[in-house]
């Protein structure tokens, strides 16, 4: 892969650096990807985990044992060699001592002959027959008189370390393993030294025994142990894989079955084989699935009955209501002829009947949603005229309560694939609510759009919502203050229906509010029907909303610290300092 640049190129070095960086980046990227892949596999596969752990653990165990055995073997071999050599050395030292005891002066010339003869004798004469053992006699104390002798004649000085010489010169029998080259190839030698006492002082006898055979034996044993260990580890890994597979396969089947169950295929069951734990698991699973299926069917039936009841009640009420309505209309038309108290009652009756009709309509709508009969009739629609229309229709009401409706619409058309009837109903509901709770303050309708979504926010500056009420407002028949009588329109089902409409579009309907700051509702819809929403073009929290603590200064830091209550956090603008600090 990596081609080294020609060494004579002078510009190679500067060019090499970016190339190396690029290579490094590529390698790092690949490694990271590989690591991520491995990690994913690790997390996903129980089998991989079990096999890996088994491999590692058994490697450690087997490796430890193998190390012990190999170490022991090596030690035994070495000890045997040492014992042999020590024995030879002692005999050799005795022999040499006897030989040299005939001389009382190192100068005696025959001493050198005797040393030669002794060395040859101890080495066994023929170098070809001595299996590489080298015998040396040195006389460091008498360097001027006695020459060191070695048999076979090789240079042994480098193999006899200074420390060993010092130890032997001090009168010790000592040994050391050294590696060196005596007969052409590098070999480990066991170097044994002993002092040889003579009448004129001490000379030293060394045996250098090659450990090639022991080394080879140790290597053989090691290889055997390693091979056996590796085979054992592999076997254990295979075994672990097999066992895990036995366990994991039914678990996977169970998982798949559970997935299918959760997908609604309630009649999925596991196959029960045998009587073991896994069979018990499958049986229990099957029993659970059966129970769940039964319960779910029962609940579905109950829910269906309830919706049917609501729908039936609404329909059944509509017929008598029509009759009552006609009668009431008649009475209302003739009210001027009645005395004022009765006329007043006729008006009240007319108003309550309107509300009753609205309530029935909403109930029917809700029951359609509940029954799943609500159908989306989407078509590409420009939302700007829709907003204008809603605003105009509510202009009368707004005027009545003294609320100005402000529109913030883009100049270009905002086209989205929506059901215009439902969107208009949602907007009407939201703007109507805003006007109702606007407390004579302006209501602002904003339309925003991006590539995938359109959004409409409706902002009022009324009493606002208390914390937690953002979710509750969408509940059926929810009231902010239950004691307060319902005075204006509102059946209590408007926002619920709006939420269902938004959901039907695959959109969001969210609320924000703060006490004293009013509220804002946001409707977000996908531009193309069926798309998933990820973001909204408009903010849910209005820009003019103030944070509970007044908000941080521009560009200032937020301080987060322990709050007053137990486990509470206090968030506020950092004081005085422009550094971020984390208090312990």
């Amino acid at each position, binding site marked *: 892969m990596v081609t080294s640049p020609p060494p004579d190129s002078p510009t190679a070095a500067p060019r090499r650096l970016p190339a190396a960086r690029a290579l490094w980046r590529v390698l790092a990227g690949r490694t990271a990807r590989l690591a991520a892949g491995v*990690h994913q596999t690790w997390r996903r596969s129980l089998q991989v985990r079990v096999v*890996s752990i088994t491999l*590692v653990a058994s*490697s*450690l165990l087997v*490796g*430890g044992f*193998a*190390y012990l055995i*190999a*170490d022991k073997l*090596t030690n035994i*071999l*070495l000890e045997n060699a040492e014992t042999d050599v*020590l024995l030879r050395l002692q005999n050799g*030292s*005795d*022999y040499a*001592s*006897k*030989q040299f*005891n*005939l*001389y*009382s*002066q190192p100068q*005696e*010339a*025959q001493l050198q002959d*005797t040393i030669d*003869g*002794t060395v040859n*004798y101890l080495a066994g004469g023929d170098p070809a027959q001595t299996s590489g053992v080298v015998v040396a006699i040195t006389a460091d104390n008498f360097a001027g008189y006695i020459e060191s002798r070695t048999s076979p004649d090789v240079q042994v000085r480098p193999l006899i*370390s200074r*420390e060993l010489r010092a*130890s*032997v010169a001090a*009168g*010790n*029998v*000592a*040994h*050391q*393993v*050294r*590696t060196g080259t005596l007969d052409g190839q590098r070999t*480990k030698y066991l170097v044994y030294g*002993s*002092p*040889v*006492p*003579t*009448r004129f*002082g001490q000379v030293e006898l060394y045996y250098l025994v090659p*450990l090639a055979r022991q080394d080879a034996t140790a*290597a053989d044993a*090691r290889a055997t*142990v*390693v091979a056996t260990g*590796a085979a054992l580890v592999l076997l254990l890994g295979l075994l672990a894989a097999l066992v895990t597979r036995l366990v994991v396969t039914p678990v996977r089947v169970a998982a798949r079955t559970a997935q299918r169950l959760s997908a609604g295929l309630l009649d999925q069951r596991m196959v029960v084989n045998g009587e073991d734990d896994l069979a018990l698991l499958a049986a229990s699973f099957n029993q659970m699935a059966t129970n769940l299926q039964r319960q779910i069917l029962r609940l579905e039936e109950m829910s269906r009955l309830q919706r049917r009841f609501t729908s039936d009640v609404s329909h059944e009420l509509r017929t008598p209501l029509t009759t009552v309505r006609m009668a009431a209309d008649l009475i209302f038309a003739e009210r001027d002829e009645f005395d004022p108290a009765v006329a007043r009652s006729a008006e009240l009756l007319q108003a309550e009947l309107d509300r009753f009709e609205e309530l029935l309509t909403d109930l029917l709508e809700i029951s359609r949603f509940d029954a799943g009969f609500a159908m989306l009739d989407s078509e590409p629609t420009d939302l700007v005229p829709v907003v204008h229309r809603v605003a105009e229709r509510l202009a009368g009401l707004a005027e009545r309560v003294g609320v100005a409706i402000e529109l913030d619409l883009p100049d270009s058309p905002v086209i989205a694939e929506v059901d215009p009837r439902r969107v208009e109903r949602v907007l009407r509901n939201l703007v109507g609510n805003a006007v109702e709770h606007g407390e004579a303050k302006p209501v602002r309708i904003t339309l925003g759009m991006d590539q995938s979504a359109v959004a409409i926010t409706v902002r009022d500056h009324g009493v606002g919502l208390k914390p937690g009420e953002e979710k509750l407002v969408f509940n059926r028949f929810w009231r902010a203050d239950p004691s307060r009588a319902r005075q204006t329109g509102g059946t209590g089902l408007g926002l619920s229906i709006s939420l269902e409409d938004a959901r039907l579009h695959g959109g969001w309907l969210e609320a924000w509010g703060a006490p004293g700051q009013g509220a804002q509702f946001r409707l977000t819809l996908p531009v193309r029907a069926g798309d998933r929403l990820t973001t909204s073009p408009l903010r849910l929290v209005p820009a003019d909303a103030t944070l509970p603590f007044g908000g941080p200064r521009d560009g200032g830091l937020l301080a987060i610290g322990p709050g007053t209550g137990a486990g509470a956090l206090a968030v506020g603008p950092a004081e005085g300092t422009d550094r971020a600090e984390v208090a312990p």
Partner: protein
Amino acid sequence: MSARSEPLRRRLVTVLLAGALLPVGLAGCGIPDQTEVQVDGRGPAGESGSLNGSGSQPPTRSATEDPKEFIRDYLAAAAGEREQAYDRVKQFIANEAQGRLRKKQSSEVELTVVRLLESPESRLLTNQGLWQVKVRVQQVGVLRADGTLDAPAARETEYVFQLRPADSGSQGLVITDLPNVLLLSDEALRQYYGTHTIYFWNSDQNRLVPDWRYLPNAVPVERRVTEVVRWLTGGPSEWLAPGVTKVPDGTAPINNATRSDDRWEVNLTMPAASDDRLAKLATQLAWSLPELSGQLDLKIQNQKRRTVDLRQERADHPVYPTLRAPERFCVYDGAIHPLAIASEPVGAVPVEGDANRNVVSAALSRSGDQVLAALVTRSGQQQRLLVGTGPNPVNVFNGSSHAYRSIGRPIWLRSADVRHPSGLVVADGTLYQFDGDAGMSRVAIPGQVPVSGSVTAVAASLDGHRIALIIGGALYVAPVTVDGGEVSVGAPRPLTTRLTRLTAVDWYAENQLVFAGSDGRLPAIYQTTVDGAGEYALNRDTGATVSHLAAFPGGAVGPLPSLSYMYQATAAYRNNPIGKIERAQVRDVAADAKPSDPSAPFFFY
């Protein structure tokens, strides 16, 4: 990827790494390339102290200003262990002359042994103290590395040295001019060397033959065993070699002979080392190491093959057959008569009366129960050899087929071969052998013996394998082998003596000769060693030429005081005690015998 699983992952990585590293660690647990020095304990402790060898050391260069003294010291300086001979000698030599003496290998160091015939002459050459010293010498021999003294190679009779005062800073003299040989005076040889007799088997392997060696006194006693073993394996002296067998070829000592607790161990290489050969070698060793009495382990190639109790071995295998007490006889009035000297036992003449007539000289010898008798008888101007063997007294004699004008004293060879008694005799200047039937045949003497010289005397050693000859008035020794009664003589080795015109010789001890000749002015009797080095006078004036000399060589093993001899000059004489052999000491003289002088005395043993 929560923070919680981070340590878990790290641990996992560690474990994985450990698993991967294990085989690596395993591969590393073989025999290490290098270890620390491990001490196994204290080594053996040594016994200090020097050996009780040595004796006197040769002189070093002294501060003497006397050139003669200086040269005498110089002539002794080479004595001692030969490896340092050159170093010792070079102390005497001026730096500029060091090159004259080239150093040789230790095994090739040869010392030229000379005998100073008179005191060195010195002459002052210049006023600067330059001296010239002349030494008149007689070449005695060459002392070789194996301790043998061979016949002299050089012929110089005079050596000239030049001396000058030593360089400033030291006293005395140094030699500036010198002969380029290592010289050793015979005095120094006697003083700084010990003599050792080692034994070799004769060619029939039934008799030990002594060989004579020199070993510096400086060599410690412990090493003498090694030296003896080396000598034995190295072979006999050059002159003796034809008469003896060597140890098998290839026999060599392995290192030194060592002793532990009075037990010696000799390690040899010996090809085809049969038990028989080892037994022979053991006997050789036992006799060659007479001062040792303990056990000796004979190892061949480190294998112990034979243990020798040296004392027991010597007792079981004597060198010589036991000798009876020697009896003295002489010729009186043409017949052999016993001599009665002091309280010595007096024997009966082992020759039947009829044969015991007209005897000039005689030789009697015992061989087991047999008596060997050889008589030289005179009949008119002619002499004839009569030989008879048999039990005592011998009564059957055979005469030699020829008659000679003069026959010297016959000798019996004390061969181990009892069935073929043989002897040697000189007749008319020629060496003859004779057998039990008086059959005489000429014995060829090989080698470069002066042809002009005629043989005048012969003597045999106790072992029967060495003879001494006087050829042309000079003394020789030669080996003798007897093979089925056939005597053959090896090349004679000349011995240097002060005496000239030698007349008689006999074997005086195992390695000593006694001989008679003239020291130039007076007839004298001298004794010398078998190599001619150790010579000194026994009788400086015998009054007349010694015509007959007989000695008893078994002094070391026999009952007679050692070194006994008798001779005839003007009359018959003896030593031990010294004196003339009187007529009264002759026994068994018939009443009617006419008075005459006892002559030709000899020993019967």
